[in-house]
């Protein structure tokens, strides 16, 4: 008994306990965490039946009506959804921005709450309330069919002032922000341009034609991969370069100077 008690007071016991606790929490999280829904928006664009609309209405009543109102006509905390179209629903729900988790300056992207079928049903219901932009076809958003050079020119004049020169994201006023675009699917990029979610302006087909939208998607598709010059340092420009110059460059050089000085004395 005494030996057991003594061992319990081993110096290493807290560390071992902590590791075990971390392992347990991690394991539990892995078991219970919701699996991220793989969004394949092509399915969402499938033709909607009256059953879909009815199912979508039921989902809407259960998940969205609290803020957007029972008839989707909006309340003082959320806008009306009549006429926003299927594209808006596919973007907002398909990127996890809706249902909104908490009030804040902006609804951030988060793990998607519904499966593809449910998203399609919700989209079908909202589309049935009034005419609005539809979900684009796979061909409309195919980066391989776009011209990245034209996309870059368009991106520079229309998008880069908020999203950074290569779409790495940037700050807006009051805690809002333009997100990084590298992980966004081509369909969601197209829908965002079409519907102008949150702080983003609407770029309808008269401002940026469908072909031009595809050019922009082709340009973004090339970003965020391997940079020709090595690590891209977040593509954030001179601030991150300066930070690394000080941390790595001057840090290493001073360490070497100290080392050289230590050798001689």
């Amino acid at each position, binding site marked *: 008994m005494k030996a057991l008690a003594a061992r319990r007071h081993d110096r290493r016991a807290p560390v071992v306990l902590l590791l075990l606790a971390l392992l347990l929490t991690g394991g539990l999280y892995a078991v219970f965490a919701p699996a991220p829904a793989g969004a394949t928006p092509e399915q969402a664009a499938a033709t909607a039946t009256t059953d879909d609309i009815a199912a979508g209405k039921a989902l809407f009543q259960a998940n969205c009506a609290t803020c957007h109102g029972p008839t989707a006509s909006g309340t003082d905390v959320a806008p009306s959804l009549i006429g926003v179209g299927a594209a808006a629903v596919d973007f907002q729900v398909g990127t996890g921005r809706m249902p909104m988790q908490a009030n804040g*300056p902006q609804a951030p992207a988060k793990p998607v709450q519904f499966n593809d079928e449910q998203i399609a049903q919700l989209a079908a219901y909202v589309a049935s309330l009034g005419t609005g932009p539809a979900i684009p076809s796979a061909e409309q958003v195919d980066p391989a069919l776009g011209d*990245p*050079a034209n996309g*870059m*020119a368009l991106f*520079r*004049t229309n998008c*880069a*002032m*908020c*999203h*950074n*020169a*290569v779409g*790495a*994201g*940037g*700050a*807006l*006023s*009051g*805690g809002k*922000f*333009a997100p990084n675009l590298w992980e966004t699917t081509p369909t969601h990029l197209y829908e965002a341009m079409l519907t102008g979610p949150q702080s983003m302006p609407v770029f309808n087909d008269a401002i940026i034609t469908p072909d031009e939208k595809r050019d922009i998607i082709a*340009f973004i598709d*090339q*970003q965020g991969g391997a*940079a*020709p*010059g*090595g*690590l*891209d*340092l977040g*593509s*954030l*420009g*001179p*601030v*991150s*370069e*300066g*930070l*690394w*110059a*000080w941390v*790595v*460059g*001057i840090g*290493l*050089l*001073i360490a*070497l*100077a*100290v080392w*050289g*000085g*230590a050798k*001689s*004395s």
Partner: protein
Amino acid sequence: MTTTTSTPTGAARAASATADYLDQRTGIGHAVKYFARKVFPDHWSFMLGEIALYSFVTLLISGVFLTMFFVPSMGETHYDGPWPSLNGVEMSEAFSSTLRLSFEVRGGLLMRQIHHWAALIFMASIVVHMMRVFFTGAFRKPREINWVVGFVLLILGLAAGFSGYSLPDDVLSGNGLRITDGVVRAIPIIGSYTSYFIFGGEFPGHDLIPRLFTVHILLVPGLILALIGLHLVLMVMHKHTQYPGSGRSDKNVVGYPALPVYVARLGGNFFLVFGVIALMAGTMSINPVWNYGPYDPSPVSAGAQPDWYMLFLEGALRLMPGGAEFVIGQYTVPLNVIIPAMVVPGILFTLLALYPFIEAFATGDDREHHVLDRPRNRPFRTAFGVSLLMAFFILVLAGSNDLIATHFHMSINDITWAFRVLLFVAPWLAFVITKRICLGLQRKDRELVLHGHETGRIVRFASGEYIEVHKPLDAHERWLRVQHEAIRPLEIEPAEDSRGVRRKGYRRDTMRRRLSELFYEDRVEPVTPSELAAAQAHGHGSHDAVEAGPATRELASSAPGGGQHLVDPHDETAADGRNHTV
């Protein structure tokens, strides 16, 4: 075993013959002899200036490579090359040749990245070197002129960096030029004329890139080279400063001879600096101009910032409220640009350039100084330097406010307001805290010298009294803590002489005394030999009286406890370099 003296090898004979040939024609032997026997003190912080020198050499070498391929022209062309996002796009020759240099010239991108990283390291090492010189007081007589030379080198470095940054003619650097144009136009009366003069007409014009090219590859590097030469000549002439220690004084230099010790190390250091820069250039992308695209005055992307050494200006502009602009008659006075872009850097740089002269004025000291100060022993200077750096740092952070906002999920408006307040509060706070820390460290030094190291050994006397045994410092340790001179505020002559006649220059003297009090009123004086003798003689009991010693304002009297100390016997025969006469 072969004999070496009588039969020199062929190579050795050739070398000596060449040396002799050169010496007979140039007298180079004297120079070699002089430098070979020249002694330099040794410390890692003396290598910081060398880092700057070697990154400049790296800049020269890589820069020469770049000029072979760069076309300094604003003539229009269409890109046709391996980078798909820019194919067929209209751009200037400068931008197009930068792309060719990056993607088609073998090793070109590596050279560009070496050049740019070396530029960032060059500026950073100048700043670090300058900090070392500042905080150790290496700028004091006779080195004030060399401080100014170094300061001008800093400004030239900024000019070199900015002109080079703008050469590729991409959107990001074009935005920087646009801001420069705005700042130039904000100068009252001559602003718009100056802008037209610089750009050869309306911004951006067609003249700027060739002009910047000349500035960047000829004018500024030429001046930098000349001034580096002057900087080094003055350094050799003054002899290098050394850190305080036993055996070191203002009259000697303790160190190693240049040959062979330093020559080998200098050479090695170049390869270290070049190696670190090349490693960075080989692994980390810098200034990817193809991301920004060719310059066009309309687009400005998020995260548009200058290189780090200009970031404080960007920060000042971002912090300044936009409303500070008013119109007199038909003239606009844009204080919202004049204050952040001219007044703020003007204040920072003027203080930096003139500091040696301000301090000399406040100290009233006309002697030469070759032994460095420990930063703690000059609390005002150290605190002043830290607060100046703090102001610079706040401005740098303000220039990065958008990235702080996105990376820490904060509101950019709140961040901007916080920095507006911090710009005034943080330097002051940094000053007060640094000064307290310095004075605290000095007090700790006094305490150590008087009472020695705590040993943790508790001894109980027969009477029942407990005391802790202290181990006195050895002579070298003690010398380091008492060698400095306590500078006291200047005392001036009265306003009127004995006959009641007003004295000329009294007002100036009063101002000088006030400044001197600001510098030296709060101080902790080093232990004097008599104090030490008193403390050691009766190491027990009454050292409150000893510590209160020299007249200082409420600072030296913080005697820790009144307990008794027993002092271990120790060897006092060790060499003691003190030449202390009080």
